[in-house]
C-alpha cells in the first residue's frame, strides 16, 4: 500500500529525515517510536503534505501513485488521513459543516455523487455511535474550547467519516488520560480492516496496549534504526531510548 524509499526532508535549512525506508501493507498496523526530535512528527507531516517541509530526496508510493506529487487534499482523496497532534481550533466553523464539506469533496475526488442531507445525517449518526462522540460537540465551532480528549475524539470521528485507507495518528495519545486513550483507541480499532492500514506515531508504549501493532520501528536522528514486533515497544518502555542511542552510537 505504502512504500517509502530513502525519504529525506527538511524544514527551512534543517535536515530532519535522512533516509527513511518503510513498507506498509493493507491490514497492517505499524508503530513509529522514538525520542523527541527524532523526526516522527515530520514523517507524519510529510506524508500528509504539510507545505513547510521540503522533500529533498527519495520517493513515496501510495497505492501505485507518487504521493509526493499530490496536494494535501488529493492525498486525502486517495485515502490518507492524518490525525493531528495539535488539532486546530476554528471559531465560526462547526465540525458538522466542515466534515460535510470534506466528505463531499473527497467523494467528488473519488468520482462519487455527493451525499444529500439525509444520507449525510445517516452516515454521521452511524459514525458518532462508533466513536462515542456527542452531537452537541459537533454542533460547536471546530475544536474551540474542547478538552484534549474531545479534540482527539473529534479527530477519530473525522477519520471514521472519511474512511481512509491509511490512517496516520500523530502522537494521538499526547496529553490524554488513560480513559481518553482507551476511547480513542477503541474508535481506531473499530475502523481497522483487512483493506486499510494504520501508522501510529507515538513517544510512549501505552497507546500500543490498545492499538496493538504488527510492526514497531524506532526512529532516531532521521532514520529508522531498529524494527521489530510489538515486543520491541515493550523493551523500549522498559529500557528507555538510551539503549537505542547507545546501540546506534556503537554501530557508528
Amino acid at each position: 500500500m505504502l512504500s517509502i524509499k530513502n525519504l529525506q526532508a527538511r524544514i527551512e535549512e534543517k535536515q530532519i529525515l535522512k533516509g527513511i525506508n518503510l513498507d506498509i501493507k493493507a491490514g497492517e498496523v505499524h508503530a513509529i517510536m522514538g525520542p523527541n526530535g527524532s523526526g516522527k512528527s515530520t514523517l507524519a507531516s510529510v506524508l500528509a503534505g504539510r507545505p513547510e517541509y521540503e522533500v529533498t530526496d527519495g520517493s513515496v508510493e501510495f497505492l501505485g501513485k507518487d504521493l509526493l506529487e499530490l496536494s494535501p487534499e488529493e492525498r486525502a482523496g486517495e485515502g490518507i488521513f492524518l490525525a493531528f497532534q495539535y488539532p486546530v481550533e476554528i471559531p465560526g466553523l462547526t465540525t458538522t459543516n466542515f466534515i460535510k464539506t470534506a466528505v463531499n469533496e473527497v467523494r467528488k475526488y473519488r468520482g462519487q455523487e455527493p451525499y444529500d442531507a439525509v444520507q449525510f445525517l445517516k452516515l454521521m449518526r452511524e459514525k458518532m455511535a462508533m466513536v462515542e462522540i456527542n452531537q452537541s460537540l459537533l454542533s460547536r465551532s471546530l475544536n474551540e474550547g474542547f478538552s484534549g480528549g474531545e479534540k482527539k475524539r473529534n479527530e477519530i470521528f473525522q477519520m471514521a467519516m472519511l474512511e481512509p485507507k491509511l490512517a496516520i495518528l500523530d502522537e494521538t495519545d499526547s496529553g490524554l488520560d488513560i480513559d481518553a486513550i482507551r476511547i480513542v483507541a477503541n474508535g481506531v480499532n473499530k475502523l481497522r480492516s483487512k483493506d486499510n492500514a494504520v501508522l501510529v506515531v507515538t513517544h510512549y508504549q501505552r497507546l500500543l496496549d490498545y492499538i496493538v501493532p504488527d510492526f514497531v520501528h524506532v526512529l532516531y536522528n532521521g532514520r529508522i534504526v531498529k524494527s521489530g514486533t510489538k515486543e520491541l515497544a515493550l523493551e523500549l518502555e522498559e529500557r528507555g531510548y538510551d539503549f537505542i542511542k547507545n546501540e546506534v552510537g556503537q554501530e557508528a
Partner: protein
Amino acid sequence: MNTIETIKERYQQLQSNNGSSALTPIEQNAFNSFNTLGVPTVKHEEWKYTRISSVFNKEYAFNPENLSSNITQKDLDAIRFPGYEGANELVFVNGMYSSQLSIIRSENLTVISLEEATKNEYRELVLQHLGHSGKYIKDGLNALNTAFAAEGVFIHVKKGNIVEHPVYIYNIVDAKTNNILSQPRTLIYLAQNAQVIFAETYATIGKSESFINQVTEIVVEQDALLEYYRIQNDASHANQVNTTHIRQIGKSLVNTVTVSLDGGIVRNNLNIAMEAEHSESHFYGLYFLKGNTHVDNHTVVDNVKPHCESNELYKGVVDDSSTAVFNGKIFVQKDAQKTNAYQSNKNLLLSNDASVNTKPQLEIFADDVKCSHGCTVGQLDEEAFFYLRSRGVSEKAAKSLLIHAFAVDILEHIKPEKVRAYVDQLIAERLGVELD
C-alpha cells in the same frame, strides 16, 4: 455646469419657490457652512484616507423632483429584501421619498415629509433634533445634506408601540442617463417603549455614476429598542457618504450591523451619543471587499452619562485592490463614570494589492471606566488552511470556509431571520459556495 454650481442654483431656486418655513434657518446655516467648508479633501484629518473630493468633483445632475418617475416595479423587485410582503417599505428615488412606491403597513409608524412635520404636533421634535449630527460631523458634506433638509422624511414610532413589520428602506438611484447626486435625509424618532427594526439597502440603475450623500438621524427615547441593519452592495460606479447619527436620550438599547460588500467609494459615519444612564449599544460591521472598492467606517461612541455599555466589533476581509479604513473613537465624558466601552477591529488581508488603515482612539475624561480597544490585520491562518486541506477540502473551499468562519460572528448579530438569510446568500455567492 459643475456640481457646486448646480447645487447652488437648485438651492436658490428652492428657497425662492418655497418661501420661508420653520426649517429655513437650519437650511441657511447649513448652506453657509457648506460654502465655507466645501467638500473635504485628504487634508481634512477625518478624510485622510478617503479621497472623496475627486469623486464629488465630477458633474452630477441634482434635480430629483424631475427624475424620479422612471423607476418601475421591476427595478424595485430586484432589490427587495425577502419578507417584503409583510414589511413596511420606504422607497427613495434619487434621494427623494416616493410615497407612490412605498407601502406603510404598520399603523403605529408615521412617515411624512420633514416640512410637513414642522406644521403639526411633531414640530418641536423636529426642531430640537434635526441637524444634531452636525455637532459631530463637521464637514461640508453633512452641511450640504442639511441645506436641503426640508426634502427629507420624518419617521415616528408611537409611544409604547412595537412595529411588528420591519421597515425596509430602499435607496434607488436612476443613473440611466446622467451622473446623479442624491441626498436622502431622514429623522427617525422612537418614542418611549417603542420598538422597530430597520433594514436598508442601495441600488444604482444604469451605467452613469452615482453619488449618495445621506444623513439619517435617529432619536431613541427611554426603554425603546432600535435595530438597524444596513447592507451596501451597490455597483462599483456608485459612491456614497452616509451618516447615521443615533442619540440615546433615554435608557435604551440599540443594535446596528453594517455590511459592506460592493460599491465605489463608501464612507460610513456612525455616531452613537449615549445621553442617558444605563443605555446599551452594540454595533457591528462587516466589510468584504474586492476589485477597487474603498470602504471607510468612521464610528464615534460618545459616552455622556454614566453606567452605559457599548460593544463595537468591525471585521473586514479585503481582497484584490480594495481598501478598508476603520476609525473608531470612543469618548468618555467627565460625568460618564462606570462606562463599559469595548471596541475591536479585525482584518483579513487576502491580497498584496489590498490595504487596510485602522485607527482606534480612546479619549477618556472620567476616572472609573472600563474601556478596551484593539485592532488586528492578518492573513488566513496557514495551520487551519492545511488542516482543512488535509481532510480533502480543496484550496478554494478551504479559503471560503475560513473566510466565512471569520465573518460569522458579525453575521449572527443580524437577528431578523430573513435579512440574515439575504446577507448569508450574498456572502455565499461571493465565496462561491452553496449554503445548506
